[in-house]
């Protein structure tokens, strides 16, 4: 008798979670488009996007993830090539919108290379970690540093290109993925504490200074920055006092707050991007705390599913990729909801799987497709060894 079952298995639970996301997403997009500002029927479109994206994920699932180990340089190179092409493309192909160049305009389709790059980065980083860990055993301080250097080498080129667009949100996303993966990669806790403790301390100090000793911060930092950058800080940390820069946030918070425990039936808070970036405000306004808590729980269940896949997978490359996807989604969800709640500055992130939009959905399901593939190609042991 074989010690393990070689039958391929679909991750039915995950697919069910996705189905619930599709239903919930369409429901809230429908509520969002009741606002006077919209005339298009986004729900139909969203259903179509879901079907297409799921089909793509389903196709990717059947691709054995171990091949990525050989392919990842090609994918990474392709992503990088797209970003470079975007940087040098003429205005007609790569239009400048609100001071930033982020996507190609290819007729009816807008293609945002960074949406794909983030998935390729997960694959590449996972592959590098996997190969590194195979090569260097037992791990020691020097090999840890060497691994960090390699990971840095992978994320720095796209970060430079993204910084140039500029798209600070995406830069932070790249960093978040890398941070998540270093945690899993087996680098010693001491090194990690050193690596992340210092920025965390700096950030904490900034927040304390901002609220307690603004004049010190003014002298140390704000005097050396451009006004619009400073205003963005004010708009983030004091949205209600700075309505020009914090307008979106103030409106979103008002909408969420007005929802109370069970939601309000009055649809009279106007805010832009209700069906995309600020869909969470619609959730808060229409269905209250109960709705928002359910949506957050739904994400938690999704992450739990990915987590189970990661643990179940006995090929650590699959585990790394799954963990990378968790980092990706966690960052994006936390950033988007945090922005809606006035916890984090405004960036153009959608709420994955919830916001309306084909690109956003496709890139999310691309990542999920990889996780589904990891599950599908994992061998499940009959007798787990402890």
């Amino acid at each position, binding site marked *: 008798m074989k010690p393990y079952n070689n039958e391929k298995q679909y991750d039915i639970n995950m697919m069910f979670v996705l189905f619930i996301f599709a239903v919930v997403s369409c429901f809230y997009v429908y509520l969002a488009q009741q606002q006077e500002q919209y005339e298009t029927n986004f729900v139909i479109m969203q259903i179509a996007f879901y079907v297409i994206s799921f089909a793509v994920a389903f196709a990717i699932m059947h691709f054995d993830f171990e091949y990525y180990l050989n392919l990842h340089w090609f994918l990474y190179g392709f992503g990088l090539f797209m970003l470079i092409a975007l940087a040098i493309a003429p205005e007609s192909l790569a239009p400048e919108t609100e001071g930033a160049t982020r996507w190609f305009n290819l007729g009816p389709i807008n293609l945002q290379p960074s949406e794909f790059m983030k998935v390729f980065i997960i694959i590449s980083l996972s592959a590098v970690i996997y190969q590194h*860990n*195979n090569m260097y*055993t*037992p791990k020691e301080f020097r090999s840890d540093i060497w691994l960090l250097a390699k990971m840095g080498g992978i994320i720095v080129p796209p970060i430079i290109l993204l910084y140039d667009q500029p798209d600070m949100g995406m830069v932070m996303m790249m960093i978040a993925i890398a941070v*998540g993966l270093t*945690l*899993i990669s*087996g680098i010693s806790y001491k090194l990690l504490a050193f690596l992340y403790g210092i920025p965390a301390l700096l950030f904490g100090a900034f927040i304390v200074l901002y609220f307690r000793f603004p004049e010190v911060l003014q002298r140390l930092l704000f005097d050396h920055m451009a006004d619009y950058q400073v205003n963005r800080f004010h708009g983030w940390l004091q949205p209600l006092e700075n309505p020009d820069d914090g307008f979106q946030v103030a409106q979103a*918070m*008002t*909408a*969420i*707050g*007005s*929802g*109370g*425990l069970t939601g*309000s039936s*009055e649809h*009279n*808070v106007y805010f832009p991007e209700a069906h995309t970036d600020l869909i969470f405000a619609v959730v*808060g306004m229409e269905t*209250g*705390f109960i709705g*928002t*808590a359910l949506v*957050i729980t739904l*994400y*938690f269940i999704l*992450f*739990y599913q990915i*987590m189970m896949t*990661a*643990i179940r997978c*006995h090929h*650590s490359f699959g*585990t790394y990729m799954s*963990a990378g996807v*968790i*980092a990706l989604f*966690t960052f994006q969800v*936390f950033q988007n*909801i*945090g922005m809606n*709640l006035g*916890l984090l500055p405004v960036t153009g992130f959608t709420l994955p799987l919830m916001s309306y939009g084909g690109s956003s959905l496709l890139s999310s399901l691309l990542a999920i497709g990889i996780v589904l593939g990891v599950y599908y190609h994992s061998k499940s042991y009959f007798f787990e060894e402890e």
Partner: protein
Amino acid sequence: MVREKRKNHIPIRLNVLFFAVFILFSVLILRLGYIQIVQGEEYEEMVNNNGEQTANVDAPRGLMFDRNGNTVVDNELELTLTYTNRPGNDEEMLEIAERLTQFLDIDEDDIDDINEREWQDYWLQTREDEADELVSDEEEAELEEDDDIYELQLERLPEEEVIDDIGEEEQETVAIWTEMMTGYNYAPHRIARGLDEETAHALSELMHELPGIDIMRDSVRAYPYGESFSTFFGSTGQITEGELDQYLGEGYERTDIVGNSQLEDEYESVLRGEKAEITTDADGNESTDPGARGNDLVLTIDMALQQEVEDVIDDNIGSASGGTFLNEPEAHVIMMEPDTGDILSMASYDNDVNLVMGQYEIGSTVKMATVLAGYESGVIGHGTVYEDTPINLPASQPVSSWQNMGAVNDIDAIRRSSNVYMSRIAMEMADYELGVDGRDWSGADQGFDMLRNHYAQFGLGTETGIDLPNEVTGTTDGYNIGNYLMLPFGQYDTYTPMQMAQFAATMANGGDRMQPTLVREILEPATGDEESGSVVRQNSPEVMNSVDNSNEDFERMQEGMRQVMQQSGSNGGTASDDFDDADYNPAGKTGTAQVSVHEVNDGYNQGMVAYAPHDDPEVAIAVIVPETSTSDEDSGLANSITRDALDAYFDLQEDGAEPEESDDEDEIYQDPDDDLG
């Protein structure tokens, strides 16, 4: 086995990662709970307010009537073009400005009002390519900041060239554009007033193509009696920058019209109308609160008398010789009821505000107060006699009367206007002994205070309490010993005409300082069939204080004032030539203060305080004609103005003539401020 060892760390690390995710999500849930459950109600309230739309429709201000019920300040409806500015619509604004040129009449003045920076801004905005050429690429790269580049462009743009380049027709566009730019964001701003019906109609048809443009019904002030008293009605207009915070705090809006000066300002809270309010709630239901016109003021002014007095001033100054006035002609008259403080008329040549804001040395008119101060302090008694002969003391200016009078008592000193008598009182007050103290004027400070305290009981040198903003109180704070002996006959301290009038009234009524007032009653606006609305508030006469002197003291001084006007012959009253034929039993006091206008003592301030009839005063009057020449032929102006004004008053009491309405449109509709149109 290497492989297994390597794998072992992974589940733990995954749990760490998952724990981090859990922490982050907990933060979100906590924050959500706080916003939605703890603060939920506050936000909900905010939203409900958001949903309710309130539109205010301006209500007209209250009217003003004179004491006989003639409407002296009225309202006229006027159509006004407004523009509501929004940030970031620069091009749209230029377009609208250009289209509006077809509808608005722009004249030379409007174009002259445009300043250099406005010309430049317009030019830079409309001629981007040429603007770029002003600054080379290298400079642009070097400066980086857009603001710096803009500054450089401005520097290289001479005003004349810009104006020439813009051309005549486009200049009109610039005038409108400039006017549109001055408003606050999101608040309608008046850009042109007094549109005719036709223009308004044409504009309202195009309104949807002109975002931000609206037409508003304004009510503007009309003055049926033209320039008469117009200074003290005051003006209305948009809220000034300095007062903005205060008005906003009281619930005004930026675009509201408020009283900016004099009565309109002083009684703003009364005159302000209650806006009609149209409230639309979230479901689209409208409810209307009709609002109301502001309350009306009934003034104490008698418009017929006011016009007569204005004519009297004009006639007297008109018939004066060319050299009479050392500066611009100036003359002030205030008439008031001694028993109530009601101001019956107050007029100045050329309608200036010096009646309450100008200060003058008023000369001998102050002498009654000096003698009364002497009685009260005990330094003289009734009938005390002094020798009127020039006094020339060390460390003091020499004092003499206009003639050497010999022995004079207190009443003679008023009738004949003895300066020496007054100075002797002052010397007593300062405990200065003739021939003994020499240069020792150490008691002068005490004398200054005694005299000024007593003058203040008549209102001289202190606030009269007139219901106008910005009253001044004269200058009464010098302690120059050399001038001490001049103070008691009105040649040191300065006073306002309003203070003189209060002094005159106090002399007339025997010692009650009445608060002068311009408003008798406040009325609710009249509804349809009523003649006038019900009384909201009645201003009852207010005694501010009673002078310390006894009735007998006052009777002596009033007798002196009677003799000034009615005792003729040798050693008679100083004004008897002008008044001995008056049939209304007048009493008064002349005054001529020597003043230095261009050179030392080159001019006179002619003053007079008077009342009539002597036995039962109906009217008190104060007149001052400042800075006339010292020649004899110019000396009688104050006397003759007083005479003519009192004549006019008593004539009016008999025939009760109505005031004459103005027929000069420009005078009736005075331009409130310098908007277009």
